[in-house]
């Protein structure tokens, strides 16, 4: 039984190596079928497997760095140190209000130390310039588990 503890040695097989949501998941609706009305007709281009070498590494970047630090903390200070930090992060990531807009995660940024630095995430493609929009009704339906 795995409790999800941080590994003793960073880079061991227990660390994250794959992406949680593979790409085709976005096209499958709750009945397990391709929903053409929501996601459009299929095309060969969408099934292309050409991936930029940095795409996966950027997606997992924070997780990987965290795993290294947790492993170091576990070996120097004991299992309690990374567990306490992870507990704080878990509590703070919980969505607190029923909103379709993405939460600001201010507390999480303070815990990560991101409130005192600036990074490419704050300059390039900042949330006010996102081209995709969330369908509010679809999102609320998914949250309330009522599908029409």
């Amino acid at each position, binding site marked *: 039984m795995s409790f999800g503890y941080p590994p003793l040695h960073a880079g061991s097989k227990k660390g994250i190596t794959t992406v949680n949501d593979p790409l085709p*998941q976005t096209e499958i609706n709750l009945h397990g079928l391709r929903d053409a009305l929501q996601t459009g007709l299929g095309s060969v281009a969408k099934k292309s497997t050409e991936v*930029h070498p940095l795409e996966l590494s950027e997606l997992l970047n924070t997780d990987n760095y965290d795993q290294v630090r947790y492993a170091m903390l576990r070996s120097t200070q004991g299992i309690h140190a990374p567990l306490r930090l992870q507990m704080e992060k878990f509590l703070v990531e919980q969505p607190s209000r029923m909103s379709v807009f993405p939460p600001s995660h201010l507390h999480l940024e303070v815990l990560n130390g991101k409130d005192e630095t600036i990074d490419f*995430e704050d300059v390039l*493609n900042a949330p006010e310039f996102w081209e995709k929009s*969330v369908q509010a009704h679809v999102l609320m339906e998914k949250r309330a588990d009522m599908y029409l």
Partner: protein
Amino acid sequence: MATATFFDPESSGFQFDNYARNQQLVKQGIKPPKLMKTGTTTTAVIFKGGVVLGADTRATGGNIVMNKNCSKIHYLAKNMYCLGAGTAADTEYTTRLMAGKLELLAMSMRRIVPVKSAVRMLKQMLFRYQGHVSAALIVGGVDMLGPKIVSIAPHGSSDNAPYLAMGSGSIAAMSVLETNFRPDMTAEEAVKLVRDAINAGVTNDLFSGSNIDICVITIDGAQVIRPYEQNQPEVLKKANNYTFPRGTTTVLSQGVRKVDYHIVSTEIRKTDEEPMET
């Protein structure tokens, strides 16, 4: 407008959506646009009490000179400047982001940021992007530990030495530095050495040229001399001051005339209702 589903939210930072499309375009034979590179000669030298940074001012894209007078000496902090070689946009954005990071760090640490902190942050950032951010930098500055220059390669490795050269003209510049460098020079000697090194790069390397910019940093502060020396042909130099004083053109007559206009329509609009006062 594309919609994001619950499982596929958009993220900030670098976007890789167009990568597959770009690969398809390349396969069809459409060439990607040429990146503007600062194929460069940049040099840095430590003297007694400070550092001297020098760079040329040519930016090329393929075989074409894209900018005859670009600035390669980037501001990082009051006591720290950075020379950028490689893709021009990458060096520009990386150094501007680093200047912001250093300012925030100085505010939270409440002390002057040492050069080694800036170097460490730059190395970690460049290594994270595995060399795709093509920025070959020389960071130079004076902090509480003395003068220091460090060169950082695009993949994230760094080199610590009393004299450094980066860019396509670095071989020519390094030959001059190896011959003439002495420890504990004066500021004038160091500036002359850097000028000679950049000049060797400018004359022997196709991708370096135009002017020579110099930056002298001591414990008292930094001084950017731009341009230190100009290698422009005479034709490009501005021949005259082209702002003409008032009265150059003779005024024949002056007058005020009324413009006849017709009222086409009038409109009455309600202003904001004032709240009822009880």
